[in-house]
């Protein structure tokens, strides 16, 4: 399989998973805010932190409020992490790999894009958003089913699943993040963990489980009432639930073994698996999960770097070599710079590489690149297709 095609179907898998999970994340967070009293004042900005978009948002919008924040995260085309932007990229990756994916998959992706485009054009009220999340989630699920039952389980399929696996692991950590961040205001109001906190905790973790369609699995497995530490442990370390980080990594590992030269990538996956499984969830919860989740997300991003070095190269552009070197520096110094790293792992650089024709895209991506040396190196390193479009234009003139 061509390296360039492998890279595109890998991103197809990532965007597919990212879209579904972003819808889940926004859905759970919205419904939680309506459940928790006295939190609406800080509410919507937190969503920007979790998605790593606060800085980007601040450069465009002043006011943090329900409507502008959600519009920005769902529909804003100048935000490369918005659901709609991801959908455009999903479609673009599908359009350029039509020769390896089933025709029905392309048609569904195309429909999903066209439908979403139509619905974000009209109302964005709470009710409409709910419906939109539901539609997106079920369409993505359908697409996943279609791929698994209608596509040959070949190398292209393996790359799609690897993309989905990495993205799923990453997104689950973000959704777990919602839990701990959402409880902060209640902490502030009622002090330490105690029985005052209980009703809130319950609401929060129940919502988290529901958002990942994990409530039933949790109850069957844990036989316990819903408790924060148990939920976090379940979502991070469970070996049987498909959206749990540990499970996603095991699945990822199995797919890797079908590919040539997978050893280094596998090493990176197993490292993340160790970090996940060794976590002492109880004590982490007391200190706050944030730093731990950050560490996890950075090491998930390392898997991506390793696999792109292994299969998507060899790349002629010298900048990419730089990009491969830089992350080590970030790892040491940057673990506190949560926002930047998250932004990076949301990969705006990729957005640019995949949609180079839109000249408008340049400014915001550059602005974002400032916040992360890694993102910067990447966005420079991937002019591959971008370089081609103008060349062809010149050809036409002659």
């Amino acid at each position, binding site marked *: *399989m*061509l*390296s*360039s*095609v*492998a890279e595109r179907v890998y991103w197809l898998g990532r965007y597919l998973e990212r879209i579904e999970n972003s819808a889940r994340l926004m859905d759970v967070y919205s419904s939680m805010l309506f459940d928790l009293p006295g939190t609406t004042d800080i509410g919507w900005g937190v969503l920007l932190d979790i998605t790593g978009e606060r800085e980007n948002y601040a450069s465009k919008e002043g006011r943090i409020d329900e409507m502008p924040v959600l519009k920005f995260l769902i529909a804003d085309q100048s935000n490369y992490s918005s659901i709609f932007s991801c959908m455009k990229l999903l479609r*673009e990756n599908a*359009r*350029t790999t*039509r*020769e*390896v994916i089933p*025709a029905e998959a*392309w*048609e569904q992706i*195309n*429909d999903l894009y*066209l439908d979403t485009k139509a619905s974000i054009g009209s109302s964005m009220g709470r009710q409409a958003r709910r419906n939109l999340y539901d539609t997106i989630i079920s369409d993505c699920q359908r697409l996943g089913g279609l791929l698994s039952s209608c596509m040959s389980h070949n*190398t292209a399929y393996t790359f799609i699943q690897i993309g989905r696996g990495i993205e799923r692991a990453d997104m689950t950590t973000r959704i777990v993040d919602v839990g701990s961040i959402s409880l902060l205001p209640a902490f502030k109001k009622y002090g330490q963990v105690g029985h005052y906190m209980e009703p809130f905790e319950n609401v929060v973790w129940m919502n988290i489980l529901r958002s990942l369609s994990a409530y039933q699995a949790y109850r069957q497995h844990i036989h316990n009432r819903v408790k924060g530490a148990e939920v976090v442990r379940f979502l991070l370390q469970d070996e049987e639930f498909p959206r749990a980080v540990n499970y996603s990594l095991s699945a990822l590992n199995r797919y890797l073994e079908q*590919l*040539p030269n997978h050893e280094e990538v596998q090493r990176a996956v197993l490292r993340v698996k160790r970090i996940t499984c060794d976590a002492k969830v109880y004590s982490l919860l007391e200190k706050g999960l944030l730093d731990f989740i950050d560490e996890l997300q950075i090491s998930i991003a390392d898997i991506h770097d390793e696999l792109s070095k292994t*299969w998507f190269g*060899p790349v*002629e552009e010298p900048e990419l070599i730089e990009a491969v070197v830089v992350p080590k520096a970030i790892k040491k110094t940057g673990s506190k710079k949560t926002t930047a790293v998250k932004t990076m792992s949301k990969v705006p650089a990729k957005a640019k590489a995949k949609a180079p*024709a*839109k*000249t408008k895209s340049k400014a915001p991506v550059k602005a974002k690149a400032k916040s992360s040396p890694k993102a910067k190196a990447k966005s420079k390193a991937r002019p*591959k*297709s971008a*370089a*081609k*479009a103008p*060349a*062809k*234009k*010149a*050809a*036409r003139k*002659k």
Partner: protein
Amino acid sequence: MKIDWKSYHHDDFYDEIISSSGRPQPGASTLTKYLASMKPEELKQRKDSVADAIKTMGISFTVYSDAGNIDREWPFDIIPRIIRAKEWSATSKGLEQRLRALNCFINDLYNDRKILKDKVVPADLINNSGNYRKECEGIKPLHGVWAHVCGTDLIRGADGEFYVLEDNLRVPSGVSYMLENRNVTKRVFPELFENYNIQPITEYPSQLFDTLADISPTPKDYPEVVVLTPGIYNSAYFEHSFLAQRMGAELVQGSDLVVENDHVFMKTINGLSPVDVIYRRIDDLFIDPSVFNPESTLGVKGLMGAWLKGNVGLANAPGAGVADDKIIYTYVPQIIKYYLDEDPILPNVPSYICSDKAQMQHVLQNLDKLVVKPANESGGYGMLMGPQASKKEREEFARKIRANPRNYMAQPLISLSTAPILGDNGVEPRHLDLRPFVLQGSKSYVTAGGLTRVAMVKGSYVVNSSQGGGSKDTWVVEDTK
């Protein structure tokens, strides 16, 4: 929007569906009756469902504009065009004949140049041709074939006969739309397929694969064939991807390929993997920056070397474009006679070449009646439509012709045939042409019908999709039913 054939008037033009007496053309009556029997709501619903199908299937093409490149949905008219099988079989023999002769011609030009020595074609036409590639001299590709894939544009005049308007021997496009048009029609009018015996067109991708496999340097059952595209922003990207998919070939860009020791490889997740045949959809001048345009980022460094050494098959071969020059076109009847000793089956449109002084004078004096075309443009660019042009445009063109007569030829405006399209107010006639696709490897193949392109604007002759043209499904039907 009920269809009423009585109110359909196509003036003096030949119409593909309704004859001059107002009755359906032979073979078309089942179609016209069926359409007339449909209720307006039903007709509208079918038309809408076509639009939906095209959207969902993502059949698109790219339009270049200052505001950026836009992916447009393929403009399609739901009423098919009908050609009788008997007529088509004669036409397709003519198309095969033409391509065979053209390939002999190209092979001769790059080798013995007999036709020039015999003064059948003037030598300076070749020496001044922008599409002649010196680098290809002395090369003898397999089967003596340079142009493996040809898109020949046919038009039908007022007399009802097919004429060849031009040959496209470089990177002709449109075949994917021909195939998709049929798929769309099957979705929309499944009933009609029961009552008609329509020749299938679906085998084109396998025929293309066979043709390409024929030029693999080492004979193999399944040689590694790749489709080389300029990239996702090319107007024909949809087609490149479509053909790769249907042939089971890899779709590559220049950056996916590398040449080492005069052999071509593609970069895969397993490392480098050898390539046998490249179906290139990039112009000659961009395929290899080390030989042609050094600024090309679309091509592959060293590709020409690999081809010259016979280590990779290239379709179409570089330099094949020398024969689709619009001036050479005027010599094709003589070329057919010269190499095959046969009379041309398909006539050319009468043409004047400006490099001939007397003919140039005629052209300049009759600019208001003629269509003037530059030798090497395609897609309808750089043309003068004399009867529709302003005085100023004609004067400007006269200057261009005088400055570079070799670069121009002129033809009388042929009254292109029409066919009904379904507009908002029922059926209306529109002008159209036909692009069949012809393949030649060790054997020849012609598509059943081809891509019918329609000028969607009333009275217009411009059928190019880049300039607002649409298309129709084209049926070659057996006469028996």
